[in-house]
């Protein structure tokens, strides 16, 4: 394993020729080529140049990750290019500057490539007037139902109307009426009257998700987004259309009418439904999670996430969450329970302790567990979860931190290989104490674990022979988990843990991307972040005093584990760092 840590891999821009253009009179050097939506290097467009010049150009249909169609006309700008004389040579002003020939027609900045010496004008009266015209056109048939629209507060139609629109409309005719509350599919509703026909949803579904499910029917002002008759809009990426929809036309059935967008606190986090580790924003209010939305990370998930991962948050608010520390079935305190456990572990014979941790735990937690493991001379492993992969984002590995478990030495490259040894050890009486984190290890009749209704099913490899009867042989069974299960029922010590949304930490995804996530909501009852009580436990058992902050913990871990060498909590930034695995 190499210790080299790299940040996001970007094309070497230095190799690309840079050209000078002017945006509203300010000269800026921009690369001649920029990666387009598909990652292919294509001539830089005006809108990209304006973006690099930090000049806002309003747009609806343009999206950096979707093919360009140029239909909304909101990004129209004026421009000029260096004038050429009859001899095809540049013409100069008396002061020696190149004479600029202003184009008589505007251009859509999203599709027009820049050329050397080009001048882009985004603030002229004509541009202002064109933007007003487009906004007026978009609004004449719009229902203006912002008070009951889920998009309100994050709606481009609202925002641009304030920034670039007019205060009143001249329209005195009857509006076009179109279908409302159209059930497009199991997760998506369409309000065709709110739709501005930018076709982002069509392009995402066709060109990114690879499903030619959406199209336009009718003509002119009666154009309407539609599915094929009788075929529901149902792939694992449908909810991304709600994100790309600049207005309130497409809404998520899960989120609609639940919460006003402006009340939501947004927390940067990572999806834990598979080893991809899509970057997400958790939208929460008053300790309740309302939605996950994808967060841009070109090294991981671009701007997308799957529907299954997005909706995999409801269990966090389940009423039957483990909220109390239990010692032999009786409610206890963290202090009492940790002291008792510490005493037991300190006195345990070498080789009499086994640990089954979870690859859903964070790097920091697994590292702390590995400390216990080496002190106790314990055998350890974790439980693999395997499901189906797809071509876009979903990984077959349903654990978010398989690589973390490997790097910290909790499991071998082939996860689950030690489980048989552990069950044999319990059976033979050699293993007297078992510590379990976040896994229901009791062998089940059905090897499937449903993540939630209707969505991805992840399979737990169930080749071990750990049964309830076997667990009954143990002197001590210590279990930390989030939700009650058969294993927690059998535990002598139950330590209530936190969902990732309730704590901080980092995961190492399937490709070695180390990504941190932040705490969105408080854990219920006495539940505590695992790394916090693990820290106490490690301190009690090993005498090692680590760090009481997640930053310190991560940085200490990075110093000790070669794979993470040179990486710091701070360096992880919002989008993580790729390490060699």
């Amino acid at each position, binding site marked *: 394993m190499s210790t080299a840590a790299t940040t996001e891999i970007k094309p070497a821009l230095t190799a690309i020729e840079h050209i000078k253009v002017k945006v509203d009179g300010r000269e800026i050097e921009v690369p001649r080529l920029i990666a387009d939506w598909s990652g292919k290097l294509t001539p830089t467009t005006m809108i990209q140049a304006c973006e690099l010049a930090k000049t806002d150009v309003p747009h609806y249909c343009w999206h950096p990750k979707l093919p*360009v*169609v*140029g*239909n*909304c*006309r*909101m990004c*129209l700008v004026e421009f000029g290019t260096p004038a050429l004389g009859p001899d095809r040579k540049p013409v100069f002003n008396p002061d020696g500057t190149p004479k600029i020939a202003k184009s008589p*027609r*505007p*251009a*859509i900045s999203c*599709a*027009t*490539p820049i050329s050397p010496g080009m001048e882009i004008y985004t603030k002229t009266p004509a541009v202002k007037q*064109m933007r007003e*015209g*487009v906004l*007026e*056109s*978009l609004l*004449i*048939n719009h229902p203006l139902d912002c008070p009951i629209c889920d998009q309100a507060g994050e709606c481009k139609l609202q925002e641009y109307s304030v920034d670039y629109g007019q205060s009143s409309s*001249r*329209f005195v*005719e*009857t509006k*076009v009426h179109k279908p409302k509350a159209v059930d497009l599919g199991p997760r998506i509703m369409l309000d065709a009257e709110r739709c*501005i*026909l930018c076709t982002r949803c069509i392009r995402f579904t066709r060109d990114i998700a690879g499903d030619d499910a959406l*199209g*336009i029917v*009718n*003509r*002119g*002002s*009666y*154009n309407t987004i539609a599915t094929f008759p009788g075929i529901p809009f149902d792939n694992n990426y449908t909810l991304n259309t709600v994100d790309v929809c600049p207005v309130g036309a497409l809404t998520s059935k899960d989120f609609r009418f639940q919460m006003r967008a402006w009340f939501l606190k947004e927390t940067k986090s990572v999806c834990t439904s598979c080893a991809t580790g899509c970057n997400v924003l958790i939208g929460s209010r008053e300790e309740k999670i309302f939605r996950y939305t994808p967060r841009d990370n070109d090294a991981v998930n671009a701007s997308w996430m799957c529907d299954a991962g997005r909706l995999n948050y409801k269990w966090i608010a389940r009423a039957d969450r483990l909220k109390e520390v239990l010692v032999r079935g009786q409610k206890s305190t963290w202090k009492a329970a940790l002291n008792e456990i510490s005493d037991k572990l300190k006195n345990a014979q070498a080789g009499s302790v086994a640990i089954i941790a979870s690859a859903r735990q964070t790097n920091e937690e697994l590292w702390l567990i590995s400390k216990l493991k080496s002190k106790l001379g314990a055998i350890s492993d974790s439980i693999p979860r395997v499901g189906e992969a797809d071509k876009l984002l979903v990984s077959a590995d349903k654990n978010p931190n398989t690589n973390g478990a490997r790097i910290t030495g909790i499991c071998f490259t082939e996860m689950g290989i030690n489980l048989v040894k552990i069950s044999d050890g319990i059976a033979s009486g050699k293993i007297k104490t078992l510590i379990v984190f976040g896994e229901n290890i009791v062998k089940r009749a059905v090897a499937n674990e449903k993540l939630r209704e209707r969505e991805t099913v992840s399979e737990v490899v169930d080749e071990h022979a750990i049964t309830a009867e076997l667990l009954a042989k143990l002197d001590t069974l210590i279990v930390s988990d989030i939700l009650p299960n058969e294993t927690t029922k059998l535990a002598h010590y139950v330590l209530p843990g936190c969902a990732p949304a309730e704590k901080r930490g980092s995961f190492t995804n399937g490709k070695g991307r180390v990504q941190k996530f932040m705490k969105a909501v408080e854990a219920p009852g006495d539940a505590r972040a695992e790394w916090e009580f693990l820290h106490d436990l490690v301190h009690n058992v090993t005498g090692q005093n680590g760090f009481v902050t997640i930053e310190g913990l991560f940085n200490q871990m990075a110093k000790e584990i070669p794979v993470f060498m040179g990486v710091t909590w701070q360096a992880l930034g919002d989008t993580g760092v790729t390490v060699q695995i």
Partner: protein
Amino acid sequence: MAQEYKLILKHADESGYTPDIECYLRHGGYNDLKKALAFQTKTLADGKTQSPQEQLRQEVMTSNLRGRGGAGFSCGLKWSFVDRKSGKPIYLICNADESEPGTFKDRQIIHKDPHQLIEGMIISCYANDVKLAYIYIRGEMPEGAKILNQALKEARAKNFLGKNILGTGYDLEIYVHRGAGAYICGEETGLIESLEGKRPYPRIKPPYFPAVLGLWMCPTIVNNVETLCNVKHIVGMGGLEFAKLGTPNNTGTRIVSLSGHVKRPGYYEIEVGKATLRELLYDKNFGGGLREGRQLKAIIPGGSSSKVLKAGEKFKLKKKDAEGKEILVETDMLDLPYDFDSLAQAGTMSGSSAIIVMDDSVDIVNALANLSEFYAHESCGQCTPCREGSLWMNKTLHRLTHGEGRAQDAEYLVKIADNIPGGRTICAFGEACSWPVQSFVAKFKDEFIAKGAADEERHSKEVTGHN
């Protein structure tokens, strides 16, 4: 006195002339194709060689032929833009989606002399190394499609089409594709999308210039029916000779579709610019004048999307005086020579050369409402200004013609229309739907205001009456 000059329609209306290949051959058909195929590589004075194809393209360039579809763009230039180095096949599409209201010239050629079009196409394909071509014919012309398919079959049987044409080793196939009935399919990139089986949403340019990224993202030439027929005659008589027809920069002949309030509506082929609007309307060879007792009110000179000309309007036309100096000559709208440039100087266009004549019996507001309804129905709806603006104007005009007008509607209409054209839309439909509104209201403003004001007055009386 201006005369018809029949080049394209030379035989079409002769009695006994039939659209079958035997008749065409009897009239010298496919001789120009044979001539084109016989071109040999030529060594120029500077030692460079010029292939037969390059020579043919040069002939078209020399002829100064301008596209007959509506924009009047140089055909030779259009061909010169074709990306011939991409390694991809080059396609040629004949645009037979003749949909501009008032236009009915291509239909005459297709119905009466389909082989002339096919011969023009084969020559054009040969000149551009095209191996596969399409005729995109509008859905409302089922008879034309039938005739063309029959003609293609006949041409194939005689080896004017197919493999190894007339033993030259050149292969070409032409297919007829019928549209499904949308005006926008006449826009060349919309047509290409439609041909690819999609909604005819015109493409953005850049980057999708047909000459580079056309049909199936390959270099593509889209030419009008009449334009392609002209290519046959250019080869027949030579580009220089062809350029002598018509007037400089407005060469050849054009088939004018004359409709509306004239005694003899119909199609007339003239040398471009060799007849004035007055001659076309009043000469007994052409329109034969207005109906008895009627005065001219307006002319739509180049298909419904061109800006209207009001009777009595005067324009300053650039002309050269005896010494060759450029002077401005005040010209009555009726004295405008019917060509591309003069009408452009008058702020309108000869478009698809369809003249719609309106006499004083016409309610100009109603006339515009009719046009506007057409454009609202035909907007593809892809881009915002046209999609919303075209229906908005239509709703306003509907109100104005159904007793719900306001005096301010004239102003109101122009403001709506002003938000659509001038490069704000993906294709020229934006201009097509807004130019009539802009020009009608500008030139007949009083009638629009009067109509709205009358409604307002009536309404105010009704309200008073209730009191």
